[in-house]
């Protein structure tokens, strides 16, 4: 009996001994007897030397006088075999970032056996102000600015899919997931706005008043700046344009004179003012369409003008339909500037810069020699459009069909490329291709009468009451018309010209092939017309 008691005592003592933690550094045991891991927020993680320092459990430890104590008490070392998880995923020690909330389990020698971390990224929203090789600055929604270093590994997403540094454009809205402890910044990802809200128009008008109740600018005689021309708005009389909540500044009471403003679509789909400049009076204005040679000291230098053109903080700068800081306009950019007389020179009110992008599209015309259904088309010989003339090559050429990409326009309008088969052999077609990949095939008739001009009217489209386009434009009127004399190879001035557009006309604009819905009043175009009926067959927007 006594021996049983002794045995029981020994078991109890052994059990007690085993329950004592081997590691004196280990955190306090809980009342239930389980071992609590070490926990805290990461101050520093050094994977090269294999240590991690946590702030004190109460969250203190930022002041220098506590640093020594922090290093001695809250620094833990780890080896190569440490098991690391972050946000539920197994990872490497390098991924633990300052600011992470971690749980640490030590082995019997006091080394870290396991680290389990939770990141605390928070979103920062703003517009890209400037962009460098490995950094961006953004103007945050709150109006302050932030600098964010980037690496080649910084994940960038556009439309929810992986993107690249080239997707980060000045003026674009971004969401940056950052974790910072005041000194270090870790960026988890950068998301670019899904459907970038581009500048929908740059306008000027005579200020009637500012309506504070409706937060709107009320203006009359509105003109839109299109392709370096001020074009009268189709809206007659006094118009109200609401301010965007993104723009914080509002005009002074009793504002008057001329307002220059840019609009963007707001979240409700309406055009709102995102930049505005007010100039007193209605001074003489001039337009410069030129190439920028430099920006310095509040002045811009143009290639073909010796005029002194200044800019100020109110100058509205638009690049590729994005509102940007003027410093984002680069040397050799093609620009259109509307400036008003100021002293001996000019003061720029609006500066617009559009990058030329044709996406490598080439227009061919040729007689079909062979069709491999759904796969390719071979033409016997072909002519390639060069400017407004055709360059003939007497060799066959094969183009690839890609069902999801290749569009087909026939005499009835949109056709089905699946039905494009050998019955088309011998027919002459237009092919718009990117490399050898066909973007568009059209059965439109031969066109060899080039003209150019600026669109003043677009007619024939139908819309529903909500403004949705139901049918494309079928006619346009151009002004500043020039007619190309093929025989003399000369452009000759012509009258304002009305041009009908057939359903299988080809429209190229901004590197896209599309329908006439791409066109806008004010666009400068080259059009190659049918020799007899003068219908616009190829419309190329400069």
């Amino acid at each position, binding site marked *: 009996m006594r021996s049983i008691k002794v045995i029981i005592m020994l078991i109890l003592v052994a059990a007690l001994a085993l329950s004592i933690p081997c590691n004196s550094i280990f955190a306090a045991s809980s009342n239930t007897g389980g071992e609590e891991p070490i926990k805290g*927020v990461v101050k520093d993680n050094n994977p090269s030397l294999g240590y991690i320092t946590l702030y004190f459990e109460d*969250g203190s430890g*930022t002041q220098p006088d506590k640093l020594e104590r922090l290093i001695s008490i809250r620094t833990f070392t780890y080896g190569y075999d440490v098991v690391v998880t972050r946000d539920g995923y197994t990872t490497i020690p390098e991924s633990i970032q300052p600011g992470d909330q971690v749980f640490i389990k030590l082995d019997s020698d006091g080394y870290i056996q396991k680290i389990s971390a939770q990141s605390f990224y928070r979103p920062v929203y703003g517009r890209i102000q400037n962009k460098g090789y490995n950094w961006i600055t953004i103007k945050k929604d709150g109006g302050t600015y932030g600098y964010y270093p980037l690496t080649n590994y910084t994940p960038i997403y556009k439309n929810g899919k992986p993107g690249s540094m080239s997707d980060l454009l000045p003026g674009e809205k971004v969401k940056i997931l950052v974790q910072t402890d005041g000194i270090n910044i870790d960026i988890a990802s950068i998301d670019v706005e899904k459907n970038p809200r581009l500048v929908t128009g740059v306008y000027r008008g005579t200020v009637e008043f500012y309506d504070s109740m409706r937060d709107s600018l009320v203006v009359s005689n509105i003109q839109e700046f299109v392709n370096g021309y001020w074009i009268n708005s189709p809206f007659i009389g006094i118009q109200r344009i609401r301010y965007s909540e993104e723009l914080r500044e509002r005009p002074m009471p009793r504002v008057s004179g001329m307002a220059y403003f840019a609009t963007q679509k707001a*979240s409700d*789909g309406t055009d709102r003012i995102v930049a505005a400049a007010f100039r007193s009076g209605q001074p003489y204005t001039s337009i410069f369409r030129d190439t920028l040679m430099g920006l310095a000291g509040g002045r811009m230098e143009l290639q073909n003008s010796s005029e002194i053109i200044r800019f100020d903080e109110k100058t509205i700068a638009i690049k590729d339909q994005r509102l940007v800081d003027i410093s984002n306009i680069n040397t050799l950019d093609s620009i259109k500037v509307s400036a008003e007389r100021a002293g001996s020179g000019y003061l720029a009110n609006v500066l617009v810069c559009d990058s030329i992008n044709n996406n490598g599209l080439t227009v061919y015309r040729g007689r079909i020699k062979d069709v491999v259904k759904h796969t390719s088309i071979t033409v016997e010989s072909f002519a390639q459009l060069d400017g407004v003339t055709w360059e003939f090559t007497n060799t066959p050429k094969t183009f690839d069909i890609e069902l999801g990409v290749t569009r087909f326009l026939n005499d009835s309008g949109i056709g089905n490329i699946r039905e494009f088969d050998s019955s088309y052999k011998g027919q002459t077609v237009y092919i718009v291709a990117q490399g050898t990949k066909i973007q568009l095939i059209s059965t439109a008739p031969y066109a060899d009468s080039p003209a150019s001009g600026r669109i003043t009217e677009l007619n024939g489209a139908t819309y529903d009451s*909500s403004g949705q386009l139901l049918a494309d434009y079928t006619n346009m009127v151009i002004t500043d018309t020039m007619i190309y004399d093929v025989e003399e190879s000369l452009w000759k001035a012509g009258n304002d010209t009305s041009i009908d557009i057939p359903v299988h006309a080809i429209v190229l604009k901004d590197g896209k092939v599309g329908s006439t819905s791409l066109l806008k009043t004010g666009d400068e175009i080259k059009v190659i017309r049918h020799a007899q009926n003068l219908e616009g067959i190829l419309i190329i927007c400069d």
Partner: protein
Amino acid sequence: MQKMLKKMISVFIIAAVILGIPLNTMAVEGSMGYEGGISIENQTEKDEYQYSEMCFLTGKPVLLTGTLTIKKTDKSGEINATYTYRLSNPDQNVTMNRVVMYTTKKETKSNGQITESTTLSRTPTEVITAGGITYRLIDAQFSRSVLTDPKPGINYNAGEFYTKKVYAVGAATLNNPNTITVDMYGKLYAYDQFWSSTQTQKINVLIEANLTGNNGPVKWGGAAEVIASNARRNKFQYSVNEPYQISFDGGYVKSTWDESSLSYTARLPEFDSNNNPTDVIKTYSDTRSLSSAIETQRLMVPDLKHIRGFWAEEPIKILYSLEVIPGTGADFKIGKYVTRAEFVTMLTNALKDIPVDPNVRTVTVVRRQTKATAPEISPFNDVSTDHPNYEAIKKAYQKGITRGSGNGRFSPNTYITKAEAIKMIVSALGLENLAPYPYTSAPFSDNDQIPDYARNAAFVANSLGLIYPDEAGRFNPNAKLSNEFTANLIYDLIRYMGDELIKDYRDRIMEF
């Protein structure tokens, strides 16, 4: 005696029933329906809304507009709702009639959160005609689940819903081989509070058509992302008096309005001139909106002539006008420190009550009863029930904004510190979980001096833009709050609740 006891029991039961009625119902809940549409309340017809939604059945986006009528009854926590849609697009020759009945059950969990689940009460009816073709709903499935997390100042909501609808194209029989199936998976996020309310639905739509053409079966599919959002907004505007001879200065006008926006991106096959689908996928995107008329309300004009031109005049004036700071303003003293009782009063006044669902009819039995008066017991032993700030302190305690200063005390007359104030504000917003626990290295140089209980709150308030470090980078946790600093702080809180929160729940969801 027995009669008296019975009476007391019945009073108690009635009181319990009334208290049991869910008062935290979301203000914006349900007014959009679950079809990816937007609505604005019709001011002349009760329960009727102007309504718009997108229809993709024809292979092209069609905007349908018309009315949505919602009738809801709340019977012992079970809400039965009938949604009746009458929509059309005359230009595109499309009409739609739809009736859907839902049943929603609510359950309050032990931590106060409320879960809701909604199902169809009966098979919905829906008929769409487009260009002479009839699309008739022959099968429908629907489920929806929402979690509401009621916090002192804001109710936060998040949930999902799933809809599958099968339409017969032409004849309405299950054997009809011409069908279009629409699958919708939606996420919804909403918050409700006095200064603004927003509900946003982000819906992924998949359309699958199985039709018979002249040359055999025609199958096509498309997808769309629809983001629909309803919001109620408030704005304050100072209106200057034009007459000189008038008894009061210009005053503030509160404007309230509803705004709804619907944005979609649809990827659908391009149709050829014979209306057959081609392989080219066309992307359509657009944004539509509805907005209500602006309702204006003149606010009281406080007597603050003695602070004209003072740097914090505007927030002080607005807070007096909104009766967030009690009184007429005549006794406002610049530089005076604010006590804990005064701060709690201002904070609870600023939070106001969360609006309730306007469509719900609660079924209750009203019986005449004499009110039994039980003695009021203060939650704090140093705040008597006749203390001038008692109601506010009790409310703050009941809502979890404050637990007092320890040992059952509230210390109403002690000057409030910045740490205490920020802690209360962040508790009222219910956003303390935005910081890691325990947060360290807040962007304040005196982080270590911040009391443990307020460290997370300080981080959160800073990240929300409610407070910023001083010129030396400090938080100054033990600083006493002056009248004007407090007014600024509370005004910033109101602005945050009115203007900033909506960006997270609407604009950013639409943008990214």
